[in-house]
């Protein structure tokens, strides 16, 4: 039985702008990453003290999923399938720097790209499929195929998939919530169009 899947909602965080499928949610000219992330945290009235211990990649992931999951109910088996190019290199460099004096365990714990999946799982109580992939650039075909394999096999009833990259203080986040609820078609083309569309 061929089942179709749809993009229920999406969120983008790039160049100081945050948008979801409905509208632009936030806009800031703040260039400093830490200040930007804190300003979004405050804007969302997040109240999650653990946030401040996270590295940049995890903070971006938490902010993006917070926006998505506030608007959409999610099942506890929602798979988390994320990808990027820089892995955790941003934090890796910081950890490496700390080893010159005193190696920091709080930094070391974030020197793996999949830690953000753990942070999202903890915050939203998701005990589900996880996978983090590294690629040269956003690969819509791959994300579509892998997510589909989880959905059609019944391993997951919904999937959060997308791109979460942080390099040299520059962030590029595009997260999609995929389900069988009829909406924008979950296709390689739609994913590409959404990812590459300029924010209005």
């Amino acid at each position, binding site marked *: 039985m061929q089942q179709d899947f749809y993009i229920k909602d999406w969120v983008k965080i790039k160049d100081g702008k945050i948008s979801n499928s409905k509208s632009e949610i936030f806009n800031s000219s703040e260039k400093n990453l830490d200040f930007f992330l804190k300003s979004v945290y405050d804007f969302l009235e997040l109240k999650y003290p653990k946030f*401040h*211990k996270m590295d940049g990649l995890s903070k971006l992931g938490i902010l993006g999923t917070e926006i998505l999951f506030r608007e959409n109910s999610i099942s506890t088996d929602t798979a988390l399938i994320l990808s990027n190019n820089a892995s955790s290199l941003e934090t890796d460099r910081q950890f490496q720097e700390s080893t010159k*004096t*005193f*190696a*920091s*365990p*709080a930094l070391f*714990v974030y020197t793996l790209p999949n830690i953000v999946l753990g942070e999202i799982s903890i915050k939203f109580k998701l005990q589900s499929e996880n996978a983090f992939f590294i690629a040269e650039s956003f690969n819509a075909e791959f994300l579509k195929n892998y997510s589909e394999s989880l959905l059609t096999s019944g391993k997951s009833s919904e999937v959060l998939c997308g791109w979460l990259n942080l390099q040299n203080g520059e962030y590029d986040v595009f997260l999609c919530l995929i389900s069988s609820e009829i909406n924008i078609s979950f296709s390689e083309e739609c994913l590409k169009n959404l990812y590459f569309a300029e924010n209005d």
Partner: protein
Amino acid sequence: MINLQTELKESIIEQLNLEDMEPADIGNDEPLFGDGLGLDSIDALELIVLLEKDYGIKLTDPAQSREIFVSINRMAEFIEANRTK
């Protein structure tokens, strides 16, 4: 002159990223782990680093650290007795 307890609280707030907290928010006898401040296992490891970095004390026994990190007062006592910086 700043006392050791306040100095410790300031260092902890900074090192453990306890955002929006002031030294006045942490009681000297308040439990640091579990209930109270709610620090976790990674925070405990960072406190071990703090002891060495700021006070020159090397801790290698995890059981020992559990006794020392009970409260600010207990930490201050331990530091006074063992500091090499």
